[in-house]
Each structure stands twice: as structure tokens, then as C-alpha cells.
């Protein structure tokens, strides 16, 4: 054992020095002058793009990143201006926002709540961003939205389809442009009714997590309302890659429609298994057996290849739309990257533009001023037709696309065809709808931090 030479005097001395050292920082403390978190003081303002760059949704995340970079170019007045030319609000002049040039930092969410929050925090604490945009999963979106609320900056959600994001987990500092499970169901049900009739028996396979449940709940409610029966709902583990054992019982259940509440790789695998079992060639109850995939994405369509032919699903936006906003955006995106944008890319592009525009209209980057500018904001020209940012839950209301796997694709990007553009009135619901947290769900108050 060593002998230490601690004396009373020595301890007192060290204590006094240590105390003085610890006390000094408070004298120099800057900070407190800022009116809100990360108030930009120089000639630039920073946006944070937090997308999955690794993991299962990396492909989608990288497409989001492309769109966000393009949006920054357009806001800063480079390139052809894209959808800024067709956007109904003219507050952005192509010279940045409020005279400040827009810069951006990127981060990797890894499609994990923890990693997403870590990367968002580093953007807020280290890089000093005023907003965070992007993401490709509802769990991540809800986690980062909560963080932005606490930190006092604005969160513009990317691809998040669960009802909860603007339902029971809605936050005053969070905004969602993308549509949700309820809207998918409300848009799909009438089309399914028209195509397949009102006397159908549906069998659901549902990914066993929040999004899957909310998707299943929504679509079951919407189809039952028009006369369908729900035969069974089987929950499948998220990590499952082989769905054969779940598909086999479908054949003997007496069901004539299979609803796959799956997303991403899950959906690609379950659909492929279902086709391999020859479900679509079967006749049950005297009707052709059909498959429905409530939420489509370009990535999934490409992954499933041949198998999606004739399968119905819904989308937030598609590059084949013919309105002016879509054309301007697709052309600008195609010129820069040589490919059409995905619907998650479009939502992130729109969100970046909407945030910048709100800041310009509000005359400040204060999150509370921006939230006020976005609430109840009506706009058009970004590709989705006339759109409303509802003040009660910060959800965008716009037309929803019902899509079908194309029978004769002309190119590798031409995998889905537009069946119907469901008007916004048909997918609108009350802000206190039971599937959206009921009366208990509140936005809370806006937090400007600092």
C-alpha cells in the first residue's frame, strides 16, 4: 500500500484553487443574450439534414439528401430554381433566407432512434442548426421530434407514415408534410371497393410494431366500413425475411384478399412469398384472389420487381404527375442527378422549401414565429396540388395517390401507374380522431429554447 501525504493545509489549498477554477467559467459566460436556440448571428444560417445513410433505408435516405441539397441550391439562387418558380408563396427571392446564405450539415440516423437523436443533438449542440429535416421511419421521426421540442428548434419530418407522428405524439415544434396511415386507408378503400367489390374477406399480415398496427387498424376500419370482412390479422416479427409460414394458412382461411401491412424489405419479401405460393392465380369464393399493399415506395416497387404487377397501394407523390410543380422539380432533380426523385425525396424537398419560406414570411428564425407562419398555411405549386398545413396537429392535408404496379413498365423507374388522385376532402379527419390520440393529444406549447 502506498503512503499518501495528505495534509489539512494541502487539502484546503487544493480545494480553494479547484473552487476558484470551477467558478471562473461563469464569469465569462456568453450565451444568455440569444433570444432562441442557435439564433444565427453571422451571414449564414445552418439547416440539419438527418437521414438514414446506413441500414435498411439507406437508399431512401440518400435520395432525401439529394433532394435537400437541391432545395438549398434553389433557396440560395443556384441552379434553375426548381419548384420555387411554381410555388405560390413568393417570399423567397433566391438570395438565401432573410439575407443569410443557407448552409447545411448532414447526419446518419441509421434508422435507430438512439443514433438519430445522437446525430440530431450533435447538429444542435455543435453545428448550431435552426431546424432538422428528414428521416425515414416513424419511430425515428417521433424520437427526433421530441428532441427538437425539448431543444427549442423546428423539426420538419421526412418519410413518416404512422398516425402517431401528428397523432398522439404530435409536438408544437414538429411538422409533417408526408401523409399517414389513415389517409392511405381512406384513399384506398373506395378504389378497392370499385375494383374488387364490397363482398370481400380480407386477411391481414402486419409488421409487429407501431406503424404496422396503425396501418392495419386504419385499413381494416376503412374496408369494413364499406362491407368487407376481416378474417384474420397475423402479426409478423419485424426481422422476418421468410414469410412462407405466414402465407400458407392464408390459403385455407377462406379469405380472398391479402393485405400486406409491411414496409421496405418486409414487404418485398412477403409479396414475393405470396406470389411464389401462387396466391394471385387462385380463385376463392368465386373471385380472383387479390393482394393489397397499403403503402408503396419506389424503392419497394423496384425491389419487388415483376411481383407488384396489378397490386394496389398508395403514395404521397409520384414523379409521373403532370402538374407544374412536379414537372419543375422532376426536371431540376433529373438534370442534377440523372434520375427521377422518389416520394420521400419530394417530401424532404418540400419541407426544406416550406421551412425557408416560413422563416422569410415570419421575418425571423425564431421557432415560435416559424410555427405560427406554418400553421394554417395554404400553398400550391410544390407538386401535391393545393395543400393546407393544419394548425391543430401540424399535418399537411392534400390529395393522396392510389397506385398500381404497372403491367408493362417502360423503364426501370416506371414501375407504378397512377390509378386515382383521391381528393383531399375524402382523406380529411378531425384533429381529435380516436386513431390520433383522441382528445388527450395536444401539441403543447411552442418552445424557443435558450
Amino acid at each position, binding site marked *: 500500500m502506498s503512503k499518501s501525504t495528505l495534509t489539512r493545509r494541502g487539502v484546503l489549498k487544493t480545494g480553494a484553487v479547484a473552487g476558484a477554477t470551477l467558478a471562473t467559467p461563469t464569469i465569462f*459566460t456568453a450565451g444568455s443574450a440569444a433570444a432562441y436556440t442557435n439564433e444565427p448571428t453571422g451571414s449564414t444560417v445552418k439547416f440539419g439534414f438527418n437521414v438514414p445513410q446506413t441500414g435498411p433505408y439507406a437508399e431512401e435516405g440518400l435520395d432525401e439528401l439529394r433532394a435537400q441539397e437541391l432545395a438549398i441550391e434553389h433557396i440560395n439562387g443556384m441552379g434553375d430554381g426548381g419548384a420555387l418558380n411554381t410555388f405560390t408563396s413568393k417570399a423567397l427571392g433566391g438570395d438565401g433566407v432573410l439575407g443569410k446564405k443557407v448552409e447545411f450539415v448532414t447526419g446518419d440516423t441509421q434508422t435507430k432512434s438512439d443514433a438519430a*437523436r*445522437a446525430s440530431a443533438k450533435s447538429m444542435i449542440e455543435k453545428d448550431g442548426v435552426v431546424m432538422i429535416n428528414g428521416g425515414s421511419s416513424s419511430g425515428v421521426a417521433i424520437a427526433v421530434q421530441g428532441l427538437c421540442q*425539448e431543444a427549442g428548434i423546428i423539426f420538419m419530418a421526412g418519410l413518416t407514415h404512422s398516425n*402517431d407522428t401528428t397523432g398522439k405524439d404530435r409536438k408544437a415544434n414538429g411538422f409533417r408534410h408526408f401523409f399517414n396511415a389513415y389517409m392511405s386507408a381512406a384513399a384506398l378503400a373506395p378504389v378497392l371497393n370499385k375494383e374488387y367489390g364490397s363482398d370481400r374477406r380480407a386477411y391481414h399480415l402486419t409488421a409487429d*410494431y407501431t406503424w404496422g398496427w396503425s396501418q392495419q387498424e386504419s385499413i381494416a376500419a376503412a374496408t369494413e366500413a364499406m362491407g368487407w370482412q376481416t378474417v384474420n390479422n397475423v402479426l409478423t416479427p419485424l426481422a422476418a425475411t421468410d414469410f412462407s409460414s405466414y402465407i400458407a394458412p392464408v390459403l385455407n382461411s377462406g379469405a380472398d384478399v391479402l393485405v400486406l401491412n409491411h414496409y421496405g424489405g418486409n414487404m418485398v419479401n412477403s409479396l414475393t412469398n405470396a406470389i411464389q405460393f401462387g396466391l394471385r392465380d387462385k380463385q376463392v369464393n368465386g373471385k380472383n384472389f387479390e393482394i393489397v399493399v397499403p403503402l408503396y415506395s419506389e424503392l419497394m416497387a423496384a425491389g419487388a420487381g415483376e411481383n407488384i404487377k396489378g397490386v394496389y397501394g398508395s403514395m404521397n407523390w409520384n414523379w409521373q404527375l403532370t402538374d407544374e410543380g412536379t414537372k419543375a422539380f422532376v426536371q431540376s432533380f433529373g438534370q442534377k442527378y440523372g434520375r427521377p426523385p422518389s416520394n420521400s425525396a419530394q417530401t424532404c424537398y418540400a419541407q426544406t422549401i416550406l421551412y425557408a419560406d416560413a422563416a422569410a414570411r415570419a421575418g425571423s428564425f425564431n421557432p415560435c414565429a416559424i410555427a405560427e407562419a406554418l400553421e394554417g398555411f395554404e400553398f400550391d405549386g410544390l407538386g401535391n396540388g393545393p395543400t393546407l398545413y393544419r394548425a391543430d396537429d401540424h399535418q399537411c392535408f392534400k390529395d393522396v395517390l392510389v397506385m398500381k404496379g404497372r403491367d408493362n413498365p417502360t423503364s426501370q423507374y416506371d414501375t407504378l401507374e397512377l390509378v386515382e388522385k383521391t381528393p383531399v376532402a375524402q382523406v380529411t379527419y378531425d384533429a381529435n380522431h380516436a386513431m390520433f390520440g383522441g382528445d388527450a393529444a395536444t401539441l403543447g406549447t411552442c418552445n424557443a429554447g435558450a
Partner: protein
Amino acid sequence: MLGLNKKDTSLLLIVAGLALFAPFLLNPFPADSGLAQFNAGYPDLMQRFVIFGIFAIGFNILFGLTGYLSFGHAAFLGVGSYCVVWMYKLVDYNVIWGLPLAIVVSALFSLLIGFVSLRRSGIYFSILTLAFAQMSFNLAYSVLTPITNGETGLQVYSNDPQVLLGATEPNAPHLFGIVMNQSKTLSMGAWEFTFNNGYYFCAVILMVVFYLAIRIFRSPFGMMLRAVKTNQTRMNYTGLSPRPYTLAAFVISGMYAGLAGGLMAAMDPLAGAERMQWTASGEVVLMTILGGAGTLLGPVLGAGFIKYFENIFSKINDGVLHSWFSFLPDGMENLLVGIVHPFVGKGWHLTLGLLFMAVVIFLPGGLMEGGERLKKRFSKTPEVKDPEHRPEDKPHVAE
């Protein structure tokens, strides 16, 4: 000091120094320079360094001493986090309720898993722990959603009971009013240093648990654990059952993991199921091996190393690369960006993987061995071979 020999005292002092001055050490570059990209001295990352340091120290007590490779430690991390967030929801935002509970619950949980898993050793043990952890993850992700809030992660809602919440109490995790996410910024010329309450709270706990780890390493109990690693068969033949020792080590390291998980929730009031995934368990194995298994300081270094890559390298995108090389002619600039591009941003895993390979091949003892070799190169005095793995000079029992 505190019952430690001279060498260990200095080791503890080094860790204390590193922890206390981290805000300075990790921010060596002026805030507005191009190199500020490499600064790691912001609260969230500093907290992560310390928390994962604690996690790795605990893991090392099991893996480094007994050689039992657990692939399921993330489960305890998750359990700790859920405990703390539940205490926020039920009691109030003071972390004093949640942290002890996190340690107790993870101890019970690890006792259960350890009791079953430790019936086997080697690869079978690893697989068993992996299975348990993956089971916990799946339970948390879907089946136990009423308790864990599934994919979304457990959060505090305004309509939660929070029975002790006072009217003036801060609405964020705090320790008797010291709010964790509050910081003070010190500007010195072009440099900026951030002192965060939460970070220092974690740092103090790190020092305490590091001290405990030293005591465990140097105790007769630690010696028994080493005996398990060295030759379990021989230990059996001498009439000693290794199981009580390994189980104790397993529970202790489970408690460390629970504490780390609790601290994560204490810094950021959210608990997600991903925290329990097998990749998270694998990460702590990497940290320990990278830093040096069986050494005291190694796991902490390894944890810092991996977290640094995850948070700093992943944020270097093409725009940043272009701004670095912008002084070069266009062709050269694009070429250099093209070469570096695969290793940063979304390719940070690649860089980390290469480094990990290099360490395992050239420095099997981890970063600590690198340090030892450097020390040997610069000092003339011959070093004792393998200083960690020999009996310490102990006073005679009769003394």
C-alpha cells in the same frame, strides 16, 4: 490513496483529470476553423464517451477477467433506460429515483439470465446470452409495447402521473434542481468550451465506478475471476466451483450496464428498444477489444474511439470535403474528394472496420498495447512483462 497502490492511484488520477478537463481536451480547434469538424467537445458526445465508458468498464469485468464473452449486455442497458424513464413518468424528473432502480432491476435481470446462461461456457454461453438479449429486444419492440412503447420508444407525456412533480420543478431530467441539459459556455478568443451539468454528473459517476473496478481487479475476488479465465479445469480440480464467481461477475457487469443505460435516459429522457439490439451488444465487445480487454483503461479508450467515429466521421459529407480541398486545382480537388469519399459520411463503418482490423492484427492487446509499446520505445528501463496479469505484491494476511 483510498486503498490503492501508487500505480493505480495515478491511473485513477489520470482518468479523473481526463474526465474533468474533457471539455478543453476535446475541443482543440478554434470554433470557426475548418478543423472544428473534428472537435468532439459538445455535451452529447462527451456524455456518450463517459456513459459508454462505464458500459465498457463493466463489460470488461466479465469479459476481461473471466473470459466469458457475453453478447447480450445491451439488454441490461435497455432495462436501465426503461427504469429511469418509468420513474420520470411515475414520480418526477429527478434522476435520483430512477438510477438506483436501474441498477437493482438490471442486477435482478442479469442474475436471471446469468443463472441460466452460465451453465455453459465458451461459444454456447455467448449464444445463450445473445438469444436472451435478442428475446428482450423483440419483447421490448413489440410484445411489451404497453410497457416500452415499442418502436416509438418510451417518452414522458404531459398527462403522465408524475406524483412528486413540484410547481417550480424543471421540466427536464435534473438532480435536485441541477438540470442535466444546461451548459455554460466559456469563450476564450477563437476557442469555445462547453461545460455541461449532465456531463459532469456522468463524469463523477465514471470516477466512482472506475475506482470500484480497480478495487475489483485488485481484490482476491478479481484473482479468482482471472483463475477462471486462465484454467477453469484446474480450478475445478482444486475443489473450487467457478460458478458463484462467474455469476457474481456477470451480475456486477450487468449492474454497470444498467447504470450506463440509466444514465443515457438521465441525459436524454427517452428509452428505445434499439438500445437492446444485438448490434449494441456487439458494439461493447468491439469497444473492449479495441481498447484492450482485461486492462483497466482500455475499454474507456475503446468506447471513446468508436463513439468518436460514429459521431464525427459520419458527419463529413462531400460538401465538407470540397471545402477542405478547395485550395487545389479542380481536377485534383475532385480526385482527392473521390478518394476520401468512401471512408467518411455514410462510409464511417468502413474506416472503423479497417482500423479495427489493423488494431487486432498489429496490436492484439488493443490500444493499450499500442500505448505500452510507445512507452517502452521512449523509456530505457526494462518493463515488467504483462503487468496486468501477474499477482500483485500483497501484504501477508497476518499483517
